[in-house]
């Protein structure tokens, strides 16, 4: 089927808000090429569970496309329309399974050497759309905070090597009450600038939260992770295992099937957490990967004002000789490795924050938890400098102002 043949009735299996949105835009969808429509549908079908920032952008994108004249729209879509697709893709049920369609499309584009053209076309489209977008002013500059290195007494790794180049390196921070001060800061911002999903706490260990703060914790999700890994293991051990079946299984998983049930649950957050485990790679086994990926996804999707991410030691990767000899069976952790994971993760968190609107005003703080090293990045702080004075966490936060 091609988009021109779409009808409003075909969206009957969509969740309520998604269905309404698709039906309202059916004329627009009919006018777009097959190399493009499923990208929109993949977003639309999840509309009911999206964060406000995502819903806002999707509405804007549909309005942007609808606002173009037929001629402009055709010009805008020309490169997508020119992609050589296949009968198999055309025959696929891309209305109800847009995500799966996109996986197939991606494989097809790679195999037919159209990936570069496709990427160039999407970049151009996205760029143009964002350039047209007028955003409301943020109530306050964004703030990203990362604490890492718990459990490490001493390290010879050159910490913050990438972040130092963008801010001030402090090496005489007084660690007393550091963590509490950071949490207080998050709490105060959530109270002052209340916004749904506007303030996040992402924890490798137990929950650390406050009113108005959205909290995700690796430790808290242990039962969910266990159930999921059991299901994945069963899929792997099945005689008809193949990676595509597994991907489909993961894509269709519902929060309830992993025990995320109960009366007061937040469906949007449940689905977000589930997606961290089903779409992320390594998030099921390493807390450091989980924290990095959760921060990335929270920033990308919810576009929050505040993110506080804290790394804790992940489980150790057991070397081959240990596995073979059957020793070291206890679930040991790897604090030194986790420090290095967290260091790179903090850099990625900063990069992801810088991709959001208001990047010129954003603030960022990374701290070697319990130690004297930190890097602060803010518009008024000079890049690639250091500051050796003795400083408390509260004062350090003030330097960001």
């Amino acid at each position, binding site marked *: 089927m091609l988009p021109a043949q779409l009808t409003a009735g075909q969206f009957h299996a969509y969740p309520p808000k998604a269905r309404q949105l698709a039906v309202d835009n059916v004329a627009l969808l009919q006018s777009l090429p097959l190399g493009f429509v499923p990208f929109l549908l993949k977003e639309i079908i999840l509309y009911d569970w999206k964060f406000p920032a995502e819903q806002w952008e999707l509405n804007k994108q549909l309005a942007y496309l609808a606002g173009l004249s037929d001629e402009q729209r055709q010009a805008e879509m020309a490169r997508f329309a020119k992609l050589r697709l296949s009968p198999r893709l055309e025959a696929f049920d891309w209305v109800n399974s847009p995500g799966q369609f996109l996986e197939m499309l991606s494989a097809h584009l790679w*195999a037919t050497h159209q990936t570069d053209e496709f990427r160039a076309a999407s970049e151009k489209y996205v760029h143009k759309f964002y350039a047209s977008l007028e955003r409301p002013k943020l109530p306050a500059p964004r703030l990203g905070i990362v604490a890492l290195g718990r459990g490490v007494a001493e390290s010879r790794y050159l910490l913050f090597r990438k972040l130092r180049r963008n801010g001030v390196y402090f090496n005489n921070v007084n660690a007393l009450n550091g963590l509490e001060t950071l949490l207080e800061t998050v709490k105060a911002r959530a109270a002052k600038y209340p916004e749904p999903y506007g303030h996040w706490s992402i924890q490798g260990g137990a929950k650390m939260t406050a009113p108005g703060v959205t909290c995700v914790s690796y430790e808290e999700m242990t039962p969910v992770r266990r159930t999921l890994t059991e299901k994945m293991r069963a899929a792997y051990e099945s005689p008809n*295992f193949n990676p595509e079946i597994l991907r489909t299984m993961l894509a269709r998983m519902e929060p309830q099937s992993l025990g995320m049930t109960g009366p007061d649950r937040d469906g949007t957050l449940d689905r977000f957490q589930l997606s961290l485990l089903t779409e992320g790679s*390594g998030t099921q086994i390493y807390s450091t990967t989980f924290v990095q*990926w959760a921060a990335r996804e929270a920033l990308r999707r919810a576009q929050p004002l505040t993110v506080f991410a804290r790394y804790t030691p992940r489980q150790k990767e057991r070397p081959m000789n240990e596995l*073979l000899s059957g020793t070291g069976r206890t679930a040991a952790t790897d604090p030194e490795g986790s420090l290095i994971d967290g260091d790179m993760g903090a850099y990625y968190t900063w990069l992801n924050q*810088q991709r959001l609107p208001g990047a010129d005003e954003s603030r960022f703080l990374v701290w070697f938890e319990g130690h004297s090293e930190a890097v602060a990045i803010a518009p008024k702080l000079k890049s690639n400098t250091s500051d050796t004075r003795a400083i408390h966490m509260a004062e350090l936060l003030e330097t960001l102002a």
Partner: protein
Amino acid sequence: MPRRFRGEPSTAREVAHAISRSRREFLRQATGAVAAGTLLHPYPLSALALPRVRKAVVVTFGGGARDDETFAPDGQENIPHMLAELAPRSTFFTQVINRGILGHYVATASLATGVYETFNNFAKVSPDHPTVFEYFRKDLKRPSTDAWVIAPSNGFNRIGESAYRGYGPGFGAGVILPKRLLAAALAGGGEADFNHLLRDNYESSSFSPVVGGNDIELKTLSDIFQLSVADFVAHAKSLASPDELSVYIARQLMHRLAPSLLWITLHDIDVAHSGAFSLYLDGIRRSDRLCAEIWRTIQSEPEYAGKTTMFILPDFGRDSDTSAGGNGFQHHRTGDATSRTTWMMALGAGIRENTIVDRPIESTDLVPTLGSLLGFSPNLSQGKPLPEVL
């Protein structure tokens, strides 16, 4: 998702150029190397006075390593052996572009055929075009014991020969899958514990099926390596990773059979897909050490010393930190310049030392270059022989 990032080079070409420049400058500083392009006569040492190359060892890294973690300043600490021991002896190509599909099996098959293969990376198929092993054996009438591949995972078991008419069965290389050998050797012995070790690849997800082993593999152990199962397992127990096992087997193979064409694919680095940066760095350090170990084996084995050319290259790169669609080092999904651009080191017999080549070359150029060195004709390859190493 406004994807504007300050300071990001704006075009793929700029990124590739920046990559090349940073490598070149660093290498020159580190080794005092000469750029081939600056010599009066571009290739003054061609063939003439050099010993005839009779053997080649190719080492690829499945799970490319980025510049950031290798030749760029932040990465230098991870590759002490390549920098101090190997780079000064090598002709170093700073820009090897892979225009094919960035999945490990299909990309390694493309390296081995000299054609960008297009099959599904996860399919259990032979390459569509003749492999370097088939050209080598057919043209030079070599026995099956003269060409071997040591590959990391079950998915690579058909890389030794293509399905191409006139080549294919009977002309390919023997393929050894060390993890499969190990699985066979351990058969019945608490397999569950080894899931983790024997995982097939990191790409498809965080777990993978256990690679099955059988009696043929055990026969390989005793026939080729003259090793008992007990000795093999005992030795495996002293090694920290699957790549160490691969290199151990390579050394056995070199010592017993001395194949003229040996292809080793390392894969530990691909643990990066798990998202743990420190494990990825550990993988790079290990590969660095293992490459030096292979080089030293070449020097110490009389069948190889002085008549062997070694090539070291990642199959491709990994995503850049600034590609919005990726997650930096973790994957190779975006197809951006960083994920497509890598390097190659050639060293040993017939190779000019301490030389840097900046012009872009392609992954598919390796097979024709091996053809020129060893004297066979890879007719169907899309690449071109590299004059800088001939």
